[in-house]
């Protein structure tokens, strides 16, 4: 899967995978989720049970031969999916022995243990290594050559989160600082473009999950320094420009001063006071999570109550970030574990991937998507980058939109008895449905929506103290969007103190104890 992402990002690259027929479903991620108008450049050997008794190596050779003939790729990636690997046909070695004109890049991915990002990162690294073999480091000096410094933007891929627009935004940003883009890869590049990598003065590692190992290698072999800051958020974008200045030896302060973004002012405006201390849970790939945590705290005034990632390769960076925010990093690819954490922490906003969006929906918590894996709606028709100053504007809108607007929150508290503001009404800007409709999942049908969400939240029904009717009535007076939290806090408070029956007094005791 990782290898397909690299091939699909580029031009003139084709990938042959030794894989059974069903694995071809991977195509639909590109054609349906990213609405790609082309099939990804992948050919599967589609071996079946009957082939296993015969010569599967011959099937590989035949597939390779026909693929090269038909597509005439200028670089050929050859690898195997999990099942293919078990057959031990070593398709890459076969391909290398077939005397093709184009470079053959063997994908030696220990498939069973590693994940998609790692596969993409390794593939990109191998491809760059193979193509640059024999090239020498250049002696480059933009000043002496009378030109602006040049950078490579590395790491954008097909199916990545908002890569298309990030590339455009970062290109603009660098231009404002007087830096030209030599090339962007893998997205949009051809094998010939990759040959020009050494012509840049430095590299920009936009997506470390994909490009970090390549950047490290290029630094070692071609003496190209690289920019490590990922420009997501206002602060990070400024830091990025400072680092670009250092690496390129230019003064970027004018570009920083000229950066136009509405986020800081919108965040200071009085309507945003209601954002103060909103409890947020963050999950996704490492770089987006680390960036999101910084924006959430420093730029929006939220409180990070939990963060985590499925990117084990970046566990160290994540732990460091978590420590800065006073929480523990959850490093896991088990969505049940993530769901349990969300229910336990009961945040007011979840920033995550498509999976957390589902979890949040079920729990009735607002959510915004900040990272891949993605869904078709994460490929918007409009320009919506995450990076740079415009990216910060986009982030402000998309994170704040799911939350109740500031004034609206107060109005609901004041008029909660009114029909329009009754418990079932949704925030007016979220359309006119009832709350129940808004939280009903579009996806799974009765089996999943019917499951009680409380069962997994760590405090089983058996432990819950009983509510006096009067306390229950009092609870109803609390605005519905904080009622769940009030109920949980009160029950926890009562349980911890061995209170069997919750009275109005217990309710207010708990409120005083936990604070708002």
């Amino acid at each position: 899967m990782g290898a397909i992402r690299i091939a699909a990002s580029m031009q003139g690259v084709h990938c042959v995978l030794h894989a059974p027929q069903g694995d071809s479903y991977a195509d639909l991620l590109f054609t349906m989720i990213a609405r790609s108008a082309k099939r990804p450049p992948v050919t599967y050997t589609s071996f079946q049970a009957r082939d296993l008794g015969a010569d599967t190596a011959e099937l590989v050779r035949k597939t390779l031969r026909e693929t090269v003939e038909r597509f005439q790729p200028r670089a050929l990636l050859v690898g195997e999916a999990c099942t293919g690997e078990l057959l031990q046909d070593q398709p890459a070695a076969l391909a290398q022995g077939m005397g093709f004109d184009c470079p053959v890049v063997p994908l030696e991915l220990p498939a069973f243990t590693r994940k998609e990002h790692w596969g993409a990162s390794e593939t990109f690294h191998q491809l760059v290594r193979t193509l640059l073999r024999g090239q020498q480091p250049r002696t480059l000096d933009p000043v002496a050559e009378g030109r602006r410094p040049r950078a490579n933007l590395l790491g954008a891929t097909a199916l990545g989160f908002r890569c298309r627009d990030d590339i455009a935004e970062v290109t603009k940003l660098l231009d404002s600082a007087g830096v030209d883009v030599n090339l962007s890869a893998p997205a949009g590049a051809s094998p010939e473009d990759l040959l020009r990598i050494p012509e840049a003065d430095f590299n920009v590692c936009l997506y470390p999950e994909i490009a970090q190992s390549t950047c490290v290698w290029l630094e070692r072999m071609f003496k190209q320094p690289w920019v490590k800051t990922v420009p997501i958020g206002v602060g990070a974008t400024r830091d990025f420009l400072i680092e670009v200045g250092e690496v390129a030896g230019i003064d970027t302060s004018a570009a920083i001063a000229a950066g136009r973004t509405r986020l800081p002012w919108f965040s200071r405006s009085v309507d945003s006071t209601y954002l103060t201390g909103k409890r947020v849970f963050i999950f996704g790939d490492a770089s987006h999570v680390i960036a999101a945590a910084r924006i959430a705290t420093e730029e929006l005034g939220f409180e990070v109550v939990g963060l985590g990632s499925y990117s084990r390769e970046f566990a160290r960076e994540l732990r460091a970030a978590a420590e800065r925010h006073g929480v523990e990093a959850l490093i896991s690819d088990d969505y049940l574990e993530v769901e349990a954490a969300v229910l336990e922490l009961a945040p007011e906003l979840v920033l995550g991937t498509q999976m957390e969006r589902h979890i949040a929906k079920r729990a009735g918590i607002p959510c915004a998507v900040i990272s891949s894996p993605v869904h078709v709606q994460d490929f918007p028709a409009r320009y919506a980058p995450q990076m740079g100053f415009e990216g910060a504007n986009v982030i402000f809108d998309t994170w704040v939109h799911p939350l109740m607007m500031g004034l609206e929150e107060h109005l609901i508290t004041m008029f909660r008895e009114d029909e329009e503001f009754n418990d079932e009404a949704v925030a007016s800007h979220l359309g006119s449905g009832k709350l129940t409709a808004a939280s009903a999942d579009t996806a799974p049908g009765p089996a999943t929506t019917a499951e009680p969400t409380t069962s997994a939240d760590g405090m089983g029904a058996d432990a819950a103290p009983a509510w006096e009717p009067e306390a229950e009535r009092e609870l109803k007076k609390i605005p519905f969007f904080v009622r769940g939290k009030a109920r949980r806090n009160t029950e926890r408070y009562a349980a911890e103190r061995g209170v069997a029956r919750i009275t109005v007094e217990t309710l207010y005791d708990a409120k005083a104890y936990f604070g708002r």
Partner: protein
Amino acid sequence: MTDMRSRSQAKASPACAANGLGAGIGDQGAGQLSAGQLGAGDLAGNLQVQHEQGQRQVFCGLAGIVWLHRKIQDAFFLVVGSRTCAHLLQSAAGVMIFAEPRFATAVLGDRDLAGLADCNEELDRVVTELLARRPDIGTLFLVASCPSEVIKLDLENAAERLARAQQGRVRVLAYSGSGLDTTFTQGEDTCLSALVPVLPEAAAGSDALLVLGTLPDVVEDQFRRLFEALGIPSLHFLPPRRGSELPPVGPGTRLLAAQPFVGDTAAALIDRGATLIAAPYPFGIEGTRAWIGVAAEAFGISAERVEAVTAPAAKRAAVGLERYRAQLAGKRISFLPDSQLEIPLARFLQRECGMELVEVGVPYLDRRMMGAELDWLPAALRLTEGQDLERQLDRLRADRPDLTVCGLGLANPLEAEGLTTKWSIELVFSPVHGFDQAADLAELFVRPLNRRERLAF
């Protein structure tokens, strides 16, 4: 092919046809053809079938879990496979369902591959935990995948062991959804085959009709009403809505297939004494009437009675269908091999909607199940079995039909080339069988044409 072990041994023996086809057509094409050459074989009548082999663009049988878990409400499907399998299940489900649904993947890791003993131990642990956490599970299916088959993990054995450990609390069965053995809807066939040995024995002398293949509940209820009105003595459906309500089978059982992809299950039921009623499939008015008619005949019910019972629904359907017929008539259509529904749907579109068939591709041709349908196809039809994707697409580009039925991976790229497409998966998931869905079925083909016409660019 109801026996799992013979299934995994099949890998060692090239003579065993991958698709679980009986003797005949399936074998003719396999093995002998270098890709791209079309081999032609004579079918009944003078209909020619051409065989192809090469790259495929189709789901494996795991995809069947998506509808089977919705149908059998107390069943859980545990795939023993790789991350690819887990990923496929999520994508096949159309959306990523991360609330805990009734299916999951036990991902084989490095350690499992190293030693089967460890692997079995790990599986036992996963299953025990799962069953403890989900007391609502009545039937657990262990689903084999390509990797589990290649390492020869014997899931049937594991199922027996686990069932013993559960002391009858939970039924544990095994079947294969692997891409090595099964193509898309065939995963339902292997699943239902696994149920056959545990079906209760029907009481001697009891005549019953057993309708085979998953139908949406709403359609099942319509058919139930029709068969009851006809006076069919006893009626069952396989799969049942709950794993605890298995239909009985015995010599008095008459089998009526509602889906064309359940050939192995039918064969296994025949082994248990049932007789198969040869019928076309209940798509469109003509197909549904014939399907019900042949079944009624098997129970000695008169044609007049069938006419009387079905006439109101058939009449209603004709009115509904008329509107769409006008929009489909004369249009040219091609089917890429995908769900096995290609042949009956092509027949419906040609005979009842006036469409012209350009090419009808099927992943495999199961002659046991298609006899009545093939008789209804035009003799000059280009019917292809198997797939060699790139060459098939070359033909498609040359043909440029008005509508192409294909899988999701191909739909957008073909649209981008200016072809109008219909996703085949929708035909599997939507209620399309029977009189009252005949118009809906036609509408599914009208919609993309209609949309093309509306859009300015």
